[in-house]
């Protein structure tokens, strides 16, 4: 009995995961709950445990592949059950792999995602092309279009009707495929790719030198084609024209794509050709994939910044008292093995200020048209990690003492940095503190941890000149940058909150009253 194991939903809202590492190989014995793979979701790396005792039969996605939740990633032969020859799933996957290999050389267009949804029996082609198809006896429904989104052009129709080729394009595809595969069987490295490319051209005649620049002054093209050229950084005047219209060169979308690809191939070839020099100088631009945690951060930031109108309020607290208090308490904390930082003081002061200014411990439910005022205080602590920004959450800060907060923050930050933090530990904050000053700097404009409506940025705590009784004196100061969601919090609220917060950090004994 074969047990198929699907990528589980490893956390709320996660739709896909990247297989980072396989911890087992095919044929390895496994026991139940033994980790078999590390999967990176958009928040963290999680280990995927084996569901059974048995042997690893098949590992499906390779390392680095991104897999949707629910896809089979590994199969097991279950201990004590007879071993099967080939399962349905395996047969299907084998079939898919074959057809993918077949399809590859016949599908030069990268525009797969642009195919028409369905719309039975409908052919997208100009009336003139439809008429031409009738004249040439071509079934236009069977012609593969090379125009924008697969529109069938005059040229496609003529190509389908050309002598030597049957008018049924699926047959053409088969011929080309055979050629390409035959060529591919000869193991000659790069040449194989070149032959495949050539075999992929529906008509090679007009297109003998796709990488060559045409350098015209004027080129006709459909607006959608121009857009693709822009996106690909292709100069339309350089693309070899496949047709003429009114005596002017006319360029199709396919020609632009092919030209762009040819250019890229040429660049890669150049890079490979000058391998020695290239290795020293390195690539001018390195392309790093925008995915995983990086992408999650990016999307969250865009969403927050473009949803909530941000306003940032700056001020500076004079915190000699706080510095002294911490100095006094630090040895006591050390005795209990806890490193006491300023963060717990800041968090307690934040909660005290939130209690006085509940507008900042809130959330806007736009759909319901309601403002949610929260009567609990979970404080997120923005943390820089190698993978990017993470925000671990300390729950119910109002009910916890300084030492407990301190130890929880230290533990969460550590877990975030080594990426062993659980999803739940990154969720549910009502307000966030970001300590950019730990790295250096006075003021910033923090972005809200949406849907929260307040985030407090802490600058570097150090001695700065302060005017006291007309004299400039050196004092420990703490610059703060408070960003609020101006939809439901006004500048006056922000200033009032900041004042309360500063009152607490300037007079830490007030925390005793909390």
């Amino acid at each position, binding site marked *: 009995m074969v047990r198929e194991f699907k990528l589980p939903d490893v956390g709320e809202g996660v739709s896909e995961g990247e297989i980072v590492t396989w911890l087992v190989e095919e044929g390895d014995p496994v026991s139940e709950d033994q980790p078999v793979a590390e999967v990176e979701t958009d928040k963290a790396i999680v280990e995927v445990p084996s569901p059974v005792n048995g042997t690893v039969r098949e590992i499906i996605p390779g390392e680095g592949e991104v897999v949707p939740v629910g896809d089979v990633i590994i199969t097991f032969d279950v201990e004590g059950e007879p071993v099967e020859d080939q399962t349905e799933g395996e047969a299907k996957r084998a079939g898919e792999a074959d057809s993918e290999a077949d399809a590859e050389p016949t599908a030069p267009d990268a525009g797969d995602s*642009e195919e*028409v949804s*369905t*719309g039975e029996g*409908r052919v997208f082609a100009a009336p003139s092309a439809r008429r031409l198809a*009738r*004249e040439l006896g071509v079934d236009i429904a069977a012609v593969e279009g090379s125009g924008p989104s697969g*529109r069938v052009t005059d040229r496609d129709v003529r190509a389908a009707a050309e002598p030597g080729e049957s008018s049924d394009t699926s047959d053409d595809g088969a011929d080309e495929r055979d050629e390409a595969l035959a060529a591919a069987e000869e193991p000659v490295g790069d040449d194989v790719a070149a032959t495949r490319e050539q075999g992929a051209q529906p008509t090679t005649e007009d297109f003998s030198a796709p990488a060559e620049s045409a350098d015209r002054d004027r080129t006709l093209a*459909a607006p*959608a084609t121009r857009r693709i050229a822009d996106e690909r950084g292709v100069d339309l005047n350089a693309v070899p024209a496949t047709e003429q219209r009114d005596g002017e060169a006319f360029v199709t979308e396919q020609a632009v794509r092919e030209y762009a690809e040819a250019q890229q191939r040429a660049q890669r070839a150049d890079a490979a050709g000058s391998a020695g020099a290239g290795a020293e100088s390195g690539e001018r631009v390195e392309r790093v994939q925008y995915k995983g945690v990086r992408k999650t951060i990016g999307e969250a930031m865009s969403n927050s910044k473009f949803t909530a109108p941000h306003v940032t309020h700056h001020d500076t607290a004079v915190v000699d008292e706080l510095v002294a208090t911490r100095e006094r308490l630090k040895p006591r904390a050390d005795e209990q093995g806890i490193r006491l930082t300023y963060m717990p003081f800041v968090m307690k002061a934040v909660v005290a200020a939130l209690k006085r200014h509940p507008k900042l411990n809130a959330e806007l439910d736009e759909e319901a048209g309601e403002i949610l005022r929260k009567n609990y205080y979970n404080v997120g602590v923005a943390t820089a990690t190698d993978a990017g920004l993470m925000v671990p959450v300390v729950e119910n800060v109002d009910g916890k003492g300084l030492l407990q907060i301190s130890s929880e923050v230290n533990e969460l930050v550590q877990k975030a940095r080594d990426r062993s933090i659980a999803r739940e530990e990154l969720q549910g904050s009502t307000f966030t503190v970001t300590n950019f000053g730990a790295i250096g700097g006075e003021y910033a404009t923090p972005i809200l941890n949406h849907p929260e409506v307040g985030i407090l940025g802490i600058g570097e705590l150090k001695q700065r000149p302060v005017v006291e009784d007309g004299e400039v004196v050196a004092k420990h100061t703490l610059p703060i940058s408070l960003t609020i969601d101006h939809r439901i919090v006004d500048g006056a609220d922000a200033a009032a909150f900041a004042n309360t917060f500063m009152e607490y950090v300037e007079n830490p004994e007030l925390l005793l009253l909390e």
Partner: protein
Amino acid sequence: MVVGDISTGTDVLVIGAGPGGYVAAIRAGQLDLDVTLVEKDAYGGTCLNYGCIPSKAMITASDLAHEAGHAEEMGIYADPEVEMGEMVGWKDGVVDQLTGGVEKLCKANGVELMEGRAEFAGENSARVVHGGDGQGAETVEFEHAIVSTGSRPIEVPGFDFGDEPVLDSRQALALAEVPESLVIVGAGYIGMELAGVFAKLGTDVTVVEMLDSVLPAYEDDLARPVKKNAESLGVDFHFGEAASGWEEAGDGITVATEDEDGEVSEFGAEKVLVAVGRDPVTDTLELSNAGVETTDAGFIETDDRARSNVEHVFAVGDVAGEPMLAHKASKEGQVAAEVIAGEPAALDYQAVPAAVFTDPEIATVGLTEAEADEEGFEPTVGQFPFNASGRALTTGHAEGFVRVVADEPSGFLLGAQIVGPEASELIAELGFAIEMGATLEDVASTIHTHPTLSEAVMEAAENALDHAIHTLNR
């Protein structure tokens, strides 16, 4: 063969000289075929003589009279006086010019014109009975026949178009005086266009419709501005009532209606106009003599070459089925002629535009969102309101919107619906775009003249792509 008949032979016999028939005849003539075009009444058919053209002339004239008298907002004060007889005379002049032109074009293309009513006598012969006493008849032997006899208004039981106060659309467009009051039976496009004409000329108009809305063939949001505007012109609507009869009452008449529960209402008026739809004219043709079959509703079923079940008999226009539209008839006529000449023509259009010349106008082409969904597309729509169009505001007519429907994954345009100023003209661009297999991006990326109403088309496409400038994107 009846004694006294003369016999002639022709390659192509075209029966009916409306926009389907005369176009087929001219095209056949261009293709060097020997063509005979038979018409029993007037060249140009219903469209030129009693339908599209005269109604548009009367709509324009009544609009002008109405607008001139209602432009105080622009600082214009006038009280135009309408001489109905002169207005109708002007309209007749326009019609005469066009029908004369059709006759000349036919002759110039070598089309043999024959007056009379044709009926099939056999598979390859027809009798043409000339009008008037003692004019006789003649037999025409043909290789191919194109049936383009059009349609006629449906009569509602109890309303005989022969009775003086009962009007069909043709009679309504030829009145000598503006009626004081008018009951219109039917809120389809003919009823609604004429309701507008007469309301603007000062007639008290009552519209009685069996269904529950105006223009039931169109989406609600398209029909709504038309109903609203008609109401503001004083048109009185009664839905869910069927006209059951009329009787004379004093100087005028009383029209009786009945609702579903049998409740009877009565409306007094000077005249009653019945516009509840049109039936194909196939019953006078003796089609069975040629072996041509019709559907229960009287239509001749055709294939994509406009061919009937008989290989050499073609049918175009209203007789070939809905939609009954002159431009569809013309396209079918062209294709029929080309097929007969051996050309590789076919009816392979993607969409047939349609326009209703109400105030505001409605025009549609291709699929609605719901239809696109039914056909298996993943439709996306974009919409642009005319009250955000600079040009629309400067014309004083800024009600309505342009809506485009496209396939989301590919961006291909599938349809469009417009209600508003010049909708009938604006739809042409979208029809062209759909025929060309254009995408939303193509329409959105094409520069449109400013300030024109056509910018609304571009903005609607941009809206579907979520980047319209002058309206909020969804």
